[in-house]
């Protein structure tokens, strides 16, 4: 049996904010090309976990297998400069990432995001969906094998959301490991190979979406959809 390659892994990660524990002994691994969704109620620690994987925050305990430079990161809110154009934003971060050929990287990202015709537009003038596409493209400029996305489709309309997911799924098909957090359980069910349920800073479930549904389907209520299964799962475990 071939050894499973791990693209990124966290081992025994914990984090406290003052007296409040945000993460308790969290361990997680993702394989190359895998799509992992991190779901959980508000305050469960999803963003904290992604921030630690991205190297933005330091854990109080535990380790992360990859240094920040080797991980692409897309924050929940678009992190780009409103007064610069789309191309200028991409060019700036390509240069800061010390890309060998910044202009080629810009052209590639413009093609990938389908924003070549908007290259000269200021980022502040773009719609939320297009800003998020640029946001993701900046996260990809380093050509890292792992991409972390914090609620990538939040505040997007359905059409924009579909466009963003089409883009992300294409990246995964090309071999990029994608770990994302979301409140949209439908997105998790549709797109994730595996879901990780976080509650009160702990991983309470890890498996495929059907496995989560199966974990709560045997109580005589009948078949639940994914969202109902998720809520029932948390309730059963006192969250």
């Amino acid at each position, binding site marked *: 049996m071939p050894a499973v390659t791990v693209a990124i892994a966290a081992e025994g990660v914990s984090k406290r904010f003052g007296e409040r524990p945000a993460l308790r002994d969290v361990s997680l691994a993702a394989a190359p090309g895998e799509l992992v969704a991190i779901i959980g109620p508000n305050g469960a620690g999803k963003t904290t976990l992604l921030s630690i994987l*991205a190297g*933005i925050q330091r854990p109080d305990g535990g380790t992360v297998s990859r240094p920040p430079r080797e991980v692409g990161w897309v*924050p929940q809110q678009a*992190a780009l400069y409103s007064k*610069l154009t789309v191309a200028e934003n991409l060019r700036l971060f390509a240069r*800061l*990432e*010390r890309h060998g050929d910044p202009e080629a990287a810009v052209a590639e990202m413009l093609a990938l995001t389908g924003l070549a015709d908007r290259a000269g537009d200021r980022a502040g003038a773009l719609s939320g969906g297009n800003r998020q596409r640029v946001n993701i493209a900046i996260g990809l400029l380093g050509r890292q094998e792992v991409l972390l996305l914090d609620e990538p489709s939040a505040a997007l309309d359905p059409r924009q959301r579909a466009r963003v997911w089409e883009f992300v799924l294409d990246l995964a098909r090309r071999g990029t490991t994608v770990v994302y957090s979301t409140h949209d359980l439908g997105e998790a069910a549709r797109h994730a190979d595996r879901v990780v349920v976080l509650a009160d800073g702990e991983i309470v479930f890890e498996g495929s979406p059907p496995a989560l549904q199966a974990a709560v389907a045997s109580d005589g209520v009948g078949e639940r959809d994914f969202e109902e299964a998720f809520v029932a799962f948390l309730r059963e475990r006192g969250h």
Partner: protein
Amino acid sequence: MRWLLLKDLRILGRSPALVALLVLYPVVVSVLIGLALSAGPDKPRVAYVSLVDEDAAPLEIGGRDVDLSRYEGLLFDAIDPVDVDCDGLSDQQCRDAAVATVESGEAVAALIVPPDFTDRLGGLQSLATGGPPTVEVVYDADDPVRAQYVEDTIAAQLREANLALTTRFTETGLRYLDLIVSGGTVDVPLLEDIEILGLERAEEIVRRARPQVDAAARAELDEVIRFSELARENLDFSAPLLRAVREPIRIEQTPLRGAGTSLSAYAIAVAVAVSLMLVALLLAAGALALEREENAYARLVRGPVSRIGLLAEKSALAAVCAGLLALALLAGLELFVNLDWARFPLWLAALALAGLAFGAVGVAVGAVARDVRAASLLCVMAALPLAFLALVPSGSVSPALYDATRVVSAAFPFGPALDALDAALNGAGELLGPLAHLAGLAVVYGGLARLALTRFA
């Protein structure tokens, strides 16, 4: 860091309101300061009325005519005189008209010379009764600062006039003393010249007559001769005494520190320091806060740029822009005052270190604030009182409070920046000390900014 700097300059260039402010600021400030320095302080508008009869005999002190219009001219140099039309008016009506200009706000003060002014002044020589002449000053005390200025201006001019007249009276007194001692001729109006014998010649006459009288009369004449000798010697002492009374205290000024920068030269240093401070602080704080406002901060510091690199870039951006603005301000001031451009390298050193120190304070503020507006507000609220403290002169507050202001000022770059600019621009004091102080503050505030990023970002 180069790409970040270029990015910030590009963003700055796309903020037309901010660029306009940065361009207009030095132009407006330099023009205002230049006009203020070249025109001198605003003269108070004062209504001047002389009720002295112009056709009367001129004032004469010690046999010489005194031209009172000369003193009027000195006064008019210090004030902006307001015309009061007194044609056909009585003295009282003319006075009332002058006072009315003050009441209406046309003039801030009225200076009224009464009709008996020259008579009383002339009477001082003859010990005539009636007291010394008096001029009346009526002024508007609505604005205490302006009232004080008017008071000082008029009082200073009257002191000058008093001094000049005292000189005249002293000269007259000395001539009379000389007549008493040495004798001579006195020109008395309407009479012939009167010959005054004088103590010296009287003594000679008595000495010549002494051998011709008996012993008893000779003893009496000896007393007269001794009195004459004593009187001459004492009157000889009176001359320097009277000259001393004319100006009893002379002032010799010894500046303890600095090279005695003129007020206008110091004003230029203050203007440059304030401009540098505001621009560097606001730019550094705003540029760092913008990174967080645009959510780009975390993306930058997780890999491409170190936190220290980011702080250094913002400080450098602030120092460069503020320094260029300060140079533009100085170039504008050159139209009004002569600056010593041979000291240009010293200017650059002072501007660079002061800009970096202010930039370091700016990034410390920007690290604490969450957005550009909060950062700007914090900068202005913190900087202006601290700059004001650095301008508090010694002796104007209690020693303990002054020591406290010095300690607080030393912890903020404005004081050392002002010292450095004064030294660089005007050659006042040494430059290295303030430069080292600024470099130290830049390091300290840079460290605080780094800590604040860890705590607040």
